[in-house]
């Protein structure tokens, strides 16, 4: 009977340890989702997150943030709905800066909300003024002391209409060597357009700015190192970077990992909880054996 009791206790505690082990493995194993702050993939935001950024899983939580001291990065594959865009506009009205980039659906939804009809034209490549590959196009910002920005897979939208919300301050173009790769063969063809294309739109909304970047990646891992000067310029040492993760709010695993991880690694609170659980397990096992 005693042996059974002891073996039962041992089994329970061993099971607890195994569960903790599995949880720890889930926490540390990488997720390669695009624009996820813990993703180490090309389009992940791990590098940005490691610089001390924070994240939000709902645009509504922007209300709790000090807009004047925040730069919001909205990068995703899915388009923003009107409710989210309302929240973003409200945030910028209070003095916040919002940068959007990601899929063309996202960019199109932003343009549409601001009063434009946007037509997708194709990918832009620049064989001369580019970074390691013609698809990583360099553009020069007149702001921030002519900082060079690297855009990963930029694309062109033909926009028509008038600004319903805000005023367009700047349009940043690619170099004169860039071309519109309509057939996506990575080469310039005779019938393809060559010249400068607008890829960044800086719109003043209220007291803040919306920076619409027509590119798949800006502060993503693939080009993050090239864009840190721009990020520093935007934050100006007074604003903190918040990354929108509302696209993942329905994913339990993604949310769990977001809760456990901080920008400096695994949360000390998680370490504390796991360690104390193990301590209790060991205490129970040793005290039982001892008695």
């Amino acid at each position: 009977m005693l042996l059974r009791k002891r073996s039962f206790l041992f089994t329970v505690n061993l099971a607890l340890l195994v569960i903790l082990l599995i949880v720890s493995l889930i926490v540390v194993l990488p997720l390669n989702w695009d624009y996820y702050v813990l993703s180490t993939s090309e389009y992940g935001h791990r590098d940005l997150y490691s610089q001390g950024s924070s994240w939000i899983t709902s645009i509504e939580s922007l209300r709790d943030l000090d807009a004047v001291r925040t730069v919001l990065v909205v990068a995703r594959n899915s388009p923003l709905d009107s409710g989210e865009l309302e929240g973003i506009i409200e945030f910028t009205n209070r003095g916040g800066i919002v940068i959007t980039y990601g899929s063309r659906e996202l960019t199109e939804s932003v343009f549409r909300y601001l009063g434009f009809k946007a037509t997708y034209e194709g990918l832009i490549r620049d064989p001369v003024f580019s970074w390691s590959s013609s698809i990583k196009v360099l553009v020069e910002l007149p702001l921030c002391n002519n900082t060079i920005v690297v855009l990963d897979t930029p694309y062109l939208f033909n926009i028509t209409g008038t600004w319903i919300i805000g005023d367009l301050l700047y349009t940043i173009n690619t170099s004169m060597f860039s071309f519109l790769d309509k057939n996506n063969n990575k080469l310039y063809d005779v019938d393809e357009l060559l010249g400068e294309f607008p890829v960044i739109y800086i719109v003043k909304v209220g007291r803040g700015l919306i920076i619409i970047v027509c590119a798949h990646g800006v502060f993503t891992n693939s080009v993050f190192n090239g864009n840190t000067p721009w990020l520093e310029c935007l934050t100006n040492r007074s604003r903190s970077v918040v990354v929108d993760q509302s696209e993942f709010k329905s994913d339990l695993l993604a949310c769990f990992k977001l809760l456990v991880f901080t920008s400096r690694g695994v949360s000390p609170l998680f370490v504390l909880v796991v360690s104390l659980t193990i301590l209790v397990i060991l205490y129970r096992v040793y005290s039982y054996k001892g008695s």
Partner: protein
Amino acid sequence: MFTPIRVLKHGNLLRLIIVVSVLAGLLGEVHFNEHVNLHVYILAPLAVPLLLVNSLLVFLLSLTLSIIMASLGLISLLFSLVVVVIGFLTLYLETHTSISSKVIASLLAFTPVYIVTPISLIPVFTVIVLVIALSIKEYLRLSKSNVEVFSETRVAYLGELVKYKVVITCSGLFKYSIFEEGKSIVSDVATGMVTHNFSFRSNRLGVNEKNISVLIEDVRGFARIVHGPYILSFRVVARITGLLKKAERLIEKYAMYVSTPQILRVSFEPPAVNWTIPQRLIREVEAKVSHHTSTGYFGEYMGIREYKPGDNPRAIYWKKSLKRESLEDLYVKVYAKESANISSGARVLLADLTATNPIELDVLLSALYGELLSEISRERPLTQVHLFVKIPGEEPLYISGKVVDVVVALNTIIQKHNIKALYNYETWRRSRTIRLGESTGFISGLENYYRALGLAFAEVVKSRVGRKAAIQLIYSNALAYKYSIISQVLKDSGFMVLKV
């Protein structure tokens, strides 16, 4: 196990250092690391129980705290090393039982934490380094230990105890286990020197060997060393060997009296249908029974009794007999020795050599030879002896004659018949108590069968030796039930029964 200890007890300085290190590490981290906020002070209360608990829990708590502290930053990492080292030393200094397995298990149990914060492996590696260092220290101490095995028995009789002594010398406190043929026979803790005396029963004839190994361990389980195996060599001889040599010498001495031994094959055949009715069947196979009369009387004079047919005429007490009115009343002198052989001064022995193991066989044969040779040793080589020998699997043999003749005959039997023990059981004990006459069923049938055997044997003795003979029984413990019944039957038939 985790009973609180007094705060002012020895060793609390170490506990205090751990608490101070934890607090210093947290304070330093909060002060110098901008990423760490005041929430880390949640760890501070965890350090307080360190002052109140026993050494094992001190180690567990300090390990937990050091692992958490290591994940906070560089300053708390440095202090975490102090915490875990002192926590481990507290456990090491205050414990005198095996802790190595607990330490290793505790380190392994925190694997989930190492996975999420690999930096917490630094205090763990520190503990591992300490464990290795202490293992080397303990191994060096144990390597100076010494073990001596002394054999106190070179030659032993079959079934006799073989004794040996093990002396273990080692500096300081140590744990030891002594193994005999790979099986642990003793395990204990000692300081300095310890001596153990062991014995085991020899049950195989010839040269025997035993492997003795000694395992010496550090009491905390950090190091162990094995001495041996030492080979204990000894020779086991049968008791009967010595008696046979003695028999040889005595027969040589009394060779002039030795005549051709008479060996008869006797069969006691109980009835097949009803065992309660005894029958006797004696089949003379090899030779006729030749009557030998003893030539003298030995022992203390015990008195007189009436003459019975078969009594030696030389024992007639003529003086007494002639005093009687009728000459038909004859009297014979009775001597002490004769009181055991009431009928004719002869000795009657029934030896059943059915044995459950070789040791028992050796004892049975020794007893039989001992009885016979005791007569010759007392300068009575011509004593009349009636020996019934039951060899396993064969019909009983009957030898009658002078004791020297019987010894010679017995030697012949032993040489001719390959007498072996039926089994090789170490022990054979009857766990059921059976009262004679009260048993039923199969046991009752068996009892009747034994009773019939007894009656048949009684008939044989009456016809060959005479009535009221003293019969000495030699049998193994395994046959105690059988011979208790036969013995009872013999007594009921008027015989005196003695068990050798």
